[in-house]
């Protein structure tokens, strides 16, 4: 099963976008972790912009980076996150533990797992299909499998957005994550002028381990934040040479991915 990658978005500690980040992921520049700066999407009306939480800013920023101009309103979207908006959920849980239990209505609508999808639809003015997924540590792989299924059965480009923001407080203590990470991939069944690489995917069952990142700090991010499990795939794209990536999925399933720069793609 083959997909073309037409766009990439990336945000993480010391990874301030795909354009800058790919030289680091390819090993051509040193990796220096630094705080992630999240800005609200300029595409949203003022009311929605004020209500955006960090995780919504993250998801929309990487999604926008992956899209060529003019694509936003006609692309199907898949949002995948291992734990949703921990800050908002924690604030609600703290409120519910008080006598008054006065939940903020804005917090409540921001707490749904598909909140980024809702903001995306408004910002992109997109009425296209959008699905929001979770598969705990395997959320990136689950999103990529869904992207594969959508792109090959729906004949439409699909934007996959994987994103995680670490929890803090009581939930952070039971579910610690390494750092913020967002990865977006625009995929399509057809090659186009925007295509940068072709990837062939097979869903198998094997004991093969995940492909690691060679840089130790990046590998800590990969193992410590579920969305960052997509980094080895981005590193393969960044190297611009044929590469193979193993990405373990749920219940012993494994995605085996061969990445080829589009110039070397025979089709």
């Amino acid at each position, binding site marked *: 099963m083959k997909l073309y990658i037409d766009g990439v978005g990336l945000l993480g500690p010391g990874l301030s976008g795909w354009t800058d980040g790919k030289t680091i992921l390819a090993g051509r520049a040193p990796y220096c972790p630094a705080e992630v700066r999240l800005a609200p999407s300029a595409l949203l009306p003022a009311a929605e912009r004020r209500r955006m939480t960090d995780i919504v800013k993250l998801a929309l920023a990487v999604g926008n980076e992956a899209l060529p101009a003019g694509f936003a309103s006609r692309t199907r979207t898949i949002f995948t996150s291992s734990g949703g908006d921990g800050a908002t959920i924690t604030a609600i849980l703290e409120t519910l533990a008080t006598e008054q239990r006065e939940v903020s209505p804005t917090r409540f609508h921001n707490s749904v797992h*598909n909140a980024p999808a809702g903001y995306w639809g408004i910002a992109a003015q997109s009425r296209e299909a959008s699905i929001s997924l979770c598969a705990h540590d395997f959320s990136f792989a689950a999103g990529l499998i869904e992207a594969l299924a959508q792109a090959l059965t729906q004949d439409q480009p699909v934007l996959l957005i994987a994103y995680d923001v670490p929890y803090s407080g009581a939930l952070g203590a039971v579910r610690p994550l390494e750092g913020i990470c967002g990865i977006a991939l625009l995929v399509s069944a057809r090659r186009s002028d925007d295509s940068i690489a072709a990837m062939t995917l097979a869903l198998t069952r094997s004991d093969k381990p995940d492909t690691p990142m060679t840089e130790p700090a990046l590998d800590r991010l990969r193992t410590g934040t579920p969305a960052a499990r997509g980094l080895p795939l981005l590193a393969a794209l960044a190297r611009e040479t044929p590469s193979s990536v193993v990405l373990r999925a749920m219940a012993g399933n494994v995605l085996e991915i061969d990445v080829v720069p589009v110039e070397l793609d025979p089709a």
Partner: protein
Amino acid sequence: MNRLVLSHFSVVSCLGIGLAETLSALRSGRSGLRPCDFETVSIPTYIGAVDGVDDQALTGPLVDYDCRNNRLAALALAQDGFSQAVAEARRRYGADRIGVFAGTSTSGILETEIAFRRRDGDTGLLPADFRYRERHNTYSVAEFTQRALGLQGPAVAVSSACASTAMAFANAARMIELGLCDAAIVGGADSLCLTTLYGFHSLQLTSQQPCRPFDTARDGISIGEAAGFALLEREDGMAGDDAAIRFLGYGESSDAYHMSSPHPEGRGARLAMEKALDSAGLTPADIDYVNLHGTATKVGDAAEDAAISTVFGTATPCGSTKGMTGHTLGACGILEATIAALCLRHGFIPPSPTTDMIDLKARCNYLRDGAVRPLNRVMSNSFGFGGSNCSLVFGRA
């Protein structure tokens, strides 16, 4: 899409445990809503609670998954021979060839809400018996279902608010079409919790009475809970089973309008219904009954009415079953899919017993009293927060 067979299905809601109790309530128009007496909640509203969930503690190897949401899921799996049917399918296809696509909006957050009251006074930490992955995390119900059924195929939780378990059908159809699995378990669970009760109350969307879909005096929702599952298989593997209900098509869309209000003309709802008809290869005239999203909010019902009358005109029979079941949020897709399947199998349109006077402004053909008649095609609508919409079409062979 290629038609799929709902070879087995099961459901649990305030209408009853399993298909027989559900069918009986739907036919007689018995509402399962009652004044809210849930946990420590003090909100003047009605709820659709499943009785006896507290007595259904999970034990054995899956004890870590024990929470209200997974208890509801376990109850549904245990009804109507569903688990046995899946075991049979597992022998036929192999455990790794059956996918699990399960929806939920709030997973086991009730247990987290209670754990937050029990935080350590000094450290603020959660009690040692708190289980994040198995109870709180959104994936919990999918992982629980996969393990409880002994399956090993692709699995994922869909969490697109109130469209979650409807979208799970779309998810499964694509995966089967692509050959990534041969059969799929679709469904999921959403259970009562403080987050949704107090959250919808804060948005002033909960009614103080049993919710009254499409009533001229409707004033909000009643929150319910439900779990349900369907085993989806390719038609060619089911030769000769003409009685089985078919899953014919799906349509998904986004409103691109507002986080918690639908587009006033039902723009996204209309698109979801049109895509579902297109996916099923049907025209509006082929649909015998639309099970509406119909949550009984002022704007939601009006927007859906506008969308329905644009797509179908004013003759197609419509109705909402939420006056009986309450709005089961992320579970309404699978609950109403099983209701659609029961209506097709037994030839009836359920009444809307809490609706008194139908809104004079409503243009759709809202059948308040239901009907007894053969049905060949039923559409089921599920629309969620964030403007996530999904319409499904089911039919007889």
